[in-house]
């Protein structure tokens, strides 16, 4: 494991032991197969135990794991003939939002996502997945393109939130987000939103007001980061764990609340261990949702989306 999380350290230790054994056996020709198999079984057991009962705060860590599949990985894995499109036609190209047209399992679609970047250089280029107004205006432009050609919209949400900066405010961050939400809700084509990592506040809902909202098992989605919530309500960011508990930000809780329509299982030990398997499982669910939604006409797609959001929250946690 390249970057074990705090609670994954016992597992990382076991993995280290296997490495060590392999290293030793290179020289001496000792038979280590039995020992390795034992350790591997132990790792699997521990992973299962740990990941079955992740606390909300641990889920926040998993959701932010740098090795977790990002929007660009999802597009690379699931979309053929992907043709990236750039710019908001007003001010700039914001690489925190990636998007374009491509073919998803046979369907032409507009695909969009907030991209955090995998390397230091990429993270800077994508501004750590925090979009400025031009990012949301680009999203809106691409959604309108989808609407014009009757193409479904698929989004991959993974962002800590919209970028908090002087320039972003000066160019109307709030207006850009509001318009993006409005555009999601007006679409006469199917819109499927997938929260694959971190669903951070307004920056997430801007591209997640869809007909069908899917969430990875260990992804999180919230109105503010647990740290931010803790520093306001508990007056100390140290209480982020408590905030994470109270906020009900896990996929499981959000499904119960009706905010998320479907939760996709991740491979053992989380999507960051087996990204390809995780993305394929997600792809299957997107495809199933698309097959259900594409036969509907524009008016009912819009009405169903509207009714879903209007009904949301009228009941509390069951």
């Amino acid at each position: 494991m390249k970057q074990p999380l705090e609670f994954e350290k016992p597992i990382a230790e076991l993995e280290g032991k296997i490495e060590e054994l392999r290293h030793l056996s290179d020289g001496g020709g000792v038979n280590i197969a039995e020992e390795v198999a034992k350790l591997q079984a132990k790792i699997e057991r521990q992973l299962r135990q740990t990941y079955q009962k992740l606390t909300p705060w641990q889920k926040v860590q998993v959701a932010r794991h740098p090795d977790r599949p990002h929007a660009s990985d999802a597009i690379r894995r699931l979309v053929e003939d992907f043709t990236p499109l750039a710019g908001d036609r007003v001010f700039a190209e914001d690489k925190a939002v990636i998007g374009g047209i491509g073919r998803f399992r046979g369907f032409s679609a507009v695909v969009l996502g907030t991209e955090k970047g995998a390397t230091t250089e990429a993270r800077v280029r994508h501004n750590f997945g925090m979009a400025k107004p031009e990012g949301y205006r680009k999203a809106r432009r691409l959604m309108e393109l989808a609407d014009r050609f009757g193409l479904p919209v698929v989004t991959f949400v993974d962002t800590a939130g919209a970028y908090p900066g002087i320039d972003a405010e000066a160019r109307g961050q709030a207006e850009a987000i509001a318009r993006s939400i409005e555009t999601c809700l007006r679409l006469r084509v199917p819109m499927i939103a997938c929260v694959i990592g971190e669903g951070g506040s307004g920056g997430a809902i801007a591209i997640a007001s869809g007909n069908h909202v899917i969430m990875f098992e260990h992804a999180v989605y919230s109105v503010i980061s647990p740290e931010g919530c803790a520093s306001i309500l508990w007056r100390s960011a140290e209480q982020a764990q408590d905030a994470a508990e109270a906020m009900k930000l896990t996929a499981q809780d959000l499904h119960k609340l009706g905010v998320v329509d479907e939760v996709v299982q991740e491979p053992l030990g989380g999507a960051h261990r087996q990204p390809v398997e995780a993305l394929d499982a997600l792809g299957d669910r997107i495809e199933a949702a698309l097959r259900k939604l594409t036969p509907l006409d524009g008016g009912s797609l819009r009405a169903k989306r509207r009714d879903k959001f209007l009904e949301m929250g009228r009941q509390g946690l069951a």
Partner: protein
Amino acid sequence: MNWLTNFVRPKLRALVKQRDTPDNLWHKCPGCGQMIFHRDLEANLHVCDKCGHHLRLPALKRLGMLFDEGKYTRIELPKAPVDPLRFRDRKRYTERLKDAQSETSEQDALIVAHGTIGGVPAVVAVFNFDFMAGSMGVAVGESFLAAAKLAKLQQAALIAIPASGGARMQEGILSLMQMPRTVLAVEEVKSAGLPYIVLLTDPTTGGVTASFAMLGDVHIAEPGSLIGFAGQRVIQETIREKLPDGFQRAEYLNDHGMVDLVVPRLELKAALARILGLLMRPKPSAEVVTLPTPEVAIPQQPRV
């Protein structure tokens, strides 16, 4: 929808005389630091007569100053689930709610009323900043939707008056979901061909700004109001630079193309009446009609 039947029934509590004894006879102006006598403050709609600073205006006074002759009818607001997440920080959310309810004598942070402004039918949805900093949760979203529905029913304009710190954090993701929900409310009014005006007051921030508050046909702001998406402290911690003077203030948003007009409070009623008249009475009238002179009425208490 049973709340619909309650629509035109005036809220009884509005008839009860509001407690109007000021706790303090003198108020310190946050603008110039001078002391203002409470009666002068009232008479001047909470605008400092020395420096022009706009102090926060209580929600009911706002209604009184905007509607013709200070007359309006409040509507019974739809019920929303209380404490949907069973949230607790250092204190239970249910307790915080109860405290806010007893301090303000209101159920939640949005008040909806209807009447006429410059003779034009209007529904006003005004935030009560005194109620948990005007934060938006399910109850506010439901009430905003009710306001939109009422506007459509009465073929009236909808005026939204945010004064809000943003999301009601104790309602977690459900407060975030009020962004698309209030956007749907705006859509309902707009698709009915009715004007939707936003009067931005101090402060309008976070998810409130990034949803219904930035989708008006016309955006009016009170001078000096803080209006923005991200909080100033968060921005400062992120960029580690000094924020420019007047950043995220009404005038700044006007300069940056996000607000149509910055209008002093004493001229607001007239401006609103003029805009509504222009939008809702587009044709020349067959006979000469004297429009009610937009005078600034300052009711001591809401008259119903």
